[in-house]
């Protein structure tokens, strides 16, 4: 399906800032990762940790004029998206890299049938007869397991259920056969059974097309279910990265450990789930040292003074990286 040695997407030191009246702040800082074809990368973190901004930064769609991507490289199939003009980026969006947004209820235009919206997405990039594009639209619906797609193309969004709408949104995202799809919490507005169906669907699609997925979520259950690699973000930076299995077995950053500890399990009976004391630091007042230090039970003087560099995670896996001064001791 693809040469598995070269990553589809390679991100180096992505840096996005937001300018406000109080000054300019980093929302995404020193974010680097790589993604191979057919692979799924999870990005987890609290609200405001920069997960969604990372996704939007890749596409060059950060909310202007407040936010802007100021540094780093985004290599998609070896091409640097950061050096492309807006017009060139438009050619890439949807065709090579696409995004599924959080809320299917509002991702579809209420004024058109879903067939028209699929067609529209195809027309942006493809020069082909209307008839054959229509066939491809129906094909895309079939790929996301919409029953009787020939009839459903005539439906308006309000005639469909939430799960069905999210499938249509998925069909639009895959219609131009992109290499990478960024899914920004695509299942949060769906109920659990529909959610499970949708995850299954994404996995099937991946197997069929060799698509690489970036899955932005705060649900560790989903991460365990479909992701092979994981980035844990805190206050705009990656605190721990690596294969999901290694991170789950040997979480190395105190923040990851605290997050995992706060996930309820069926095996252990607890009165009260452990939580992380305090709040994430506000962007305008980030700590000088490790950003998690004020809330960290293991913090010592150096944690408050300087940001830790990369060190190997406790699993010893070569791709398991952690940003903590005390990763080896604790």
């Amino acid at each position: 399906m693809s040469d598995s040695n070269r990553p589809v997407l390679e991100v180096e030191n992505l840096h996005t800032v937001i300018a406000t009246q109080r000054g300019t702040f980093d929302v995404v800082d020193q974010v680097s990762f790589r993604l191979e074809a057919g692979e799924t990368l999870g990005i987890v973190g609290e609200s405001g940790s920069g997960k969604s901004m990372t996704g939007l930064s890749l596409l060059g769609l950060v909310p202007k004029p407040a936010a802007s991507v100021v540094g780093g490289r985004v290599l998609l199939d070896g091409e640097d998206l950061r050096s492309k003009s807006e017009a060139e980026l438009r050619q890439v969006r949807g065709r090579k890299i696409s995004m599924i947004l959080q809320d299917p209820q509002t991702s579809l235009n209420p004024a058109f049938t879903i067939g028209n919206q699929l067609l529209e997405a195809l027309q942006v990039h493809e020069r082909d007869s209307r008839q054959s594009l229509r066939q491809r639209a129906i094909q895309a619906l079939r790929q996301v397991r919409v029953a009787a797609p020939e009839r459903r193309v005539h439906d308006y969004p309000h005639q469909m259920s939430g799960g069905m709408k999210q499938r249509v949104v998925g069909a639009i995202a895959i219609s131009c056969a992109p290499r990478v799809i960024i899914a920004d919490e695509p299942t949060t507005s769906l109920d659990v059974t529909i959610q499970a169906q949708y995850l299954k669907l994404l996995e099937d699609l991946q197997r069929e097309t060799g698509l690489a997925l970036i899955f932005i979520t705060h649900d560790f259950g989903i991460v365990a279910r479909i992701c092979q690699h994981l980035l844990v973000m805190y206050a705009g930076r990656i605190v721990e990265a690596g294969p999901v299995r290694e991170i789950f077995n040997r979480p190395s950053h105190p923040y990851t450990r605290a997050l995992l500890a706060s996930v309820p399990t069926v095996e252990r009976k607890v009165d009260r789930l452990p939580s992380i004391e305090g709040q994430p630091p506000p962007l305008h007042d980030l700590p000088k040292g490790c950003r998690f230090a004020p809330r960290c039970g293991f913090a010592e003087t150096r944690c408050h003074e300087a940001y830790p560099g990369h060190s190997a995670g406790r699993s010893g896996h070569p791709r398991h990286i952690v940003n903590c001064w005390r990763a080896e001791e604790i």
Partner: protein
Amino acid sequence: MPPPAGGVARGSGRSFGLASRYPLVPITILMIVLVIPSFFADLIAPHDPYAASVPNRLEPPVFAGGTWEFPLGTDRLGRDILSRTIHGAKYALSISLVGIFLGTILGTAVGLAAGYFRGWTDRIVMRVVDVSFALPSILLALALAAAFGSSFEGVIFVVVFVLWSYFARQVRGEVLSLRERDFVARARVAGAGHGRIIFRHILPNVMNTVIVLATLQIGVVIILEASLSFLGIGIPRPTPAWGLLVADGRALVVSAWWVSLIPGLAILLTVLSVNLFGDWLRDRLDPKLRQR
């Protein structure tokens, strides 16, 4: 199915509700008073609207003791009021259609641009809208008439000037909320450019509002045109515009009331029907009501 027109026209409080729920009555009135006369004026009108006949001056209408020769009476120069009113429909219709068409396009385009691009485009546009709301239209028309003389084009200009700001403000407001919707973000993710997003994704969602607003403005425009003509700064005499016809009878209201009353009734019926029809249309096109 709409009920028979006879049941609706009876003047109880309920009939207003029915008239606004079923557009048959307002549409029928509009056809009779406005549309058919303006297209077939030459066929329907019994007399030449410009032909004066001094011996027949100030004939009363047939129901007030006049003859069938002049069913709705004559004015001071003996011109047939029915014929003049029928011909007047042409001017009411053409001015409202042309004026609303131009005003709608201008206002919608400006509103789309302001709401979509925001920033300085928005600021400039909205200040201009504020200014145009603050300028009295009659005063503007007076100034124009003083500078260029009164003309058909001058009336159209005033109409467009008054209308565009309503459309610009309304459309801008809706676009501001639409542009933040996820389907616009999704289009952007799919690689759509500004033009495609504005015309394919945003415009269709404001069309309902624009259509309803345009319909409701017909009444406003007809009144405006009549006011301008009444004041002598609209359509020049001796054209039989409704406002001019009403103005002709101003001095005679006590003695020959029909000279003003008949064209006045035409204005009243037209504006009332247009507004009822507009209300009905608004209810029909409101997506919140429609989905129920």
